[in-house]
């Protein structure tokens, strides 16, 4: 199932052409770190180094400030929310108590966690299966079939969105959490591409040796190939975790009752009610925004190396 297009992790055309050219997948394994040592940074004049450092710091402030602003605003009383101070004049945790009163935040967080875990686990296992099918076995039409996998990534989500809704509707799954993750049981093109690249980089001799020792296809895949692919599996897990956690469009389409909402959908309803809806309780909206974002920040700090490497690979493979 095609995930909604997210700019960073959609590969495509470029990636497809690279595979078509038959690039050695191991090529990117060379770490450019060695080259880096010879970089000219030491030869740069002090003035230039100071300027670039100041610029970098300024950019870092721009990139972090909005979030800090949000965090700080969530700790201010209603009347001071818009004072734009970085440090609250009056520090209060009242908003965090109120938000649980105003909305079933815990329920929304629980729903989101459930969807997210199911989405990430199912897409990782199913995509790995398919990727292994493409990486290890040789059969007629493999190239064409794989090109088809890549081609599905080009398809805008809008084209399949309505019939997909009709499928879940006819199964009575509208207003349940199922449509938000169950499509992942069938793998996702981008992750199939990513994992296949990784599988191709593993030395084939290992698997031939295992076969000689009597291991069947399933064991070769599950007990030998999968453990060796851990880094790519982690990248898949965390990317999908993020995709599922932050998705708004599918919850908008499928979820009707407030007790079924995921946290982004819930946040949107709070914005509609307390932001525009005439009630003007922005501190509630702000605090809910912080609660929606915090788990992603935590995830990022737990797995930042994987995020950065995962994103970097999507580009260089292309």
């Amino acid at each position, binding site marked *: 199932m095609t995930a909604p297009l997210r700019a960073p992790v959609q590969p495509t055309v470029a990636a497809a052409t690279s595979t078509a050219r038959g690039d050695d997948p191991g090529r990117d394994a060379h770490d450019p770190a060695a080259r880096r040592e010879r970089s000219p940074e030491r030869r740069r004049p002090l003035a230039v180094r100071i300027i670039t450092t100041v610029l970098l710091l300024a950019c870092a402030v721009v990139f972090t400030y909005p979030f800090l602003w949000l965090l700080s605003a969530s700790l201010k009383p209603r009347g001071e929310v818009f004072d734009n101070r970085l440090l609250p004049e009056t520090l209060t945790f009242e908003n965090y108590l109120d938000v649980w009163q105003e909305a079933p935040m815990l329920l929304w967080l629980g729903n989101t966690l459930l969807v997210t875990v199911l989405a990430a686990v199912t897409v990782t296992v199913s995509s790995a299966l398919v990727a292994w099918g493409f990486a290890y076995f040789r059969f007629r039409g493999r190239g064409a079939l794989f090109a088809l996998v890549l081609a599905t990534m080009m398809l805008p989500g809008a084209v399949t969105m309505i019939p997909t809704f009709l499928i879940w509707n006819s199964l009575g799954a509208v207003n349940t959490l199922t449509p938000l993750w169950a499509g992942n049981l069938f793998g996702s093109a981008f992750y199939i591409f990513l994992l296949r690249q990784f599988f191709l980089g593993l030395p084939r001799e290992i698997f031939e040796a295992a076969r000689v020792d009597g291991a069947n296809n399933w064991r070769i895949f599950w007990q030998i190939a999968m453990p060796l692919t851990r880094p790519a599996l982690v990248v898949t897990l965390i990317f999908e975790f993020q995709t599922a956690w932050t998705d708004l469009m599918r919850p908008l389409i499928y979820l009707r009752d407030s007790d079924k909402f995921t946290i982004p959908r819930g946040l949107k309803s709070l914005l509609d009610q307390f*932001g525009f809806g005439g009630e003007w309780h922005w501190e509630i909206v702000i605090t809910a925004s912080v609660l929606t974002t915090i788990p992603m920040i935590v995830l990022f700090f737990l797995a930042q190396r994987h995020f950065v490497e995962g994103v970097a690979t999507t580009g260089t493979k292309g």
Partner: protein
Amino acid sequence: MPTGTTDRRTTTRPALRRARRRDARAALLFLSPWLLGFAIFTAWPVLYSGYLSLTDYDVLNDPSFVGLDNYRELFEDPKVTLALRNTFFYVAVQVPLYVLVSLALALLLNTASRRSAGFFRTVFYLPNMTPPVAVGVLLLLVFNGQNGLINELLGAIGIDGPAWTTDPDWVKPAIILTSLWSTGSSVIILFAALRNVPQELYDAARVDGANAWQRLVRITVPMISPALFFVFVVNTIAAFQTFTEAYTAFFGSGNTTYSNDAALFYAIYLFQQAFEFLNMGYASAMAWVLFVIIMVITAIQLLVSRRLVYLEGDQ
């Protein structure tokens, strides 16, 4: 493909054919999730949405065939025209800006020492972790015309900032500026490409007396052109489908009171037609028009890239 070559040398042809057939059966098992998913969630939906685009369908009653009426209607719908104009404006301004800012940040990162580059790279990626809904909320707050952070900063240097979130002329600029906040992933991709440019090229250019600007234009940009092109294409496709931030900030149940025409992007209008007005046939026709537009634009980009993108070993 690196695989397969060794076999051909060591096995006889009938044995190879047998092995291939065995492989094909096993492969089929491994591929079955995708094959099934492709049939149910891609192939059938594509065909069915093509059919729906020729019908009037509101989910409750059976689709009734209307031929090309939806497409005809679509070209006369002022809201479609508006949505297309908004979307093309967004793509034309946001994508080049996004790529330029990403490139500038990647170049800046490339001047830093290895350790601090790692740190700043992490910081630049952080906004990408913020859920788009929360980004939509932030947009409304930070760009608020009366007491938003942006206008306060502008005020500090003597500029009277516009009413970003309510003035139709400033809504799209606000959305575009907000989108630049999440350049982090493109920065990482371009930075990785920059680190792969061989240092020898710069050394040689320096010997020949090339200045920093010449080195950037003649060496850096051509050498990372595949990555630049990748970022460009991917972001173009994404920009045509932009939805969440603008929808969060300017649409939804509580927000019918004021006109939000300036933020009506194509994907938003399509969503409204499909799931708010239940015009599934009309929305399907809209989806196909979008698909064709994206295909044409991507094809043009691919053609242009043949001339502009440098691939090592190709020429």
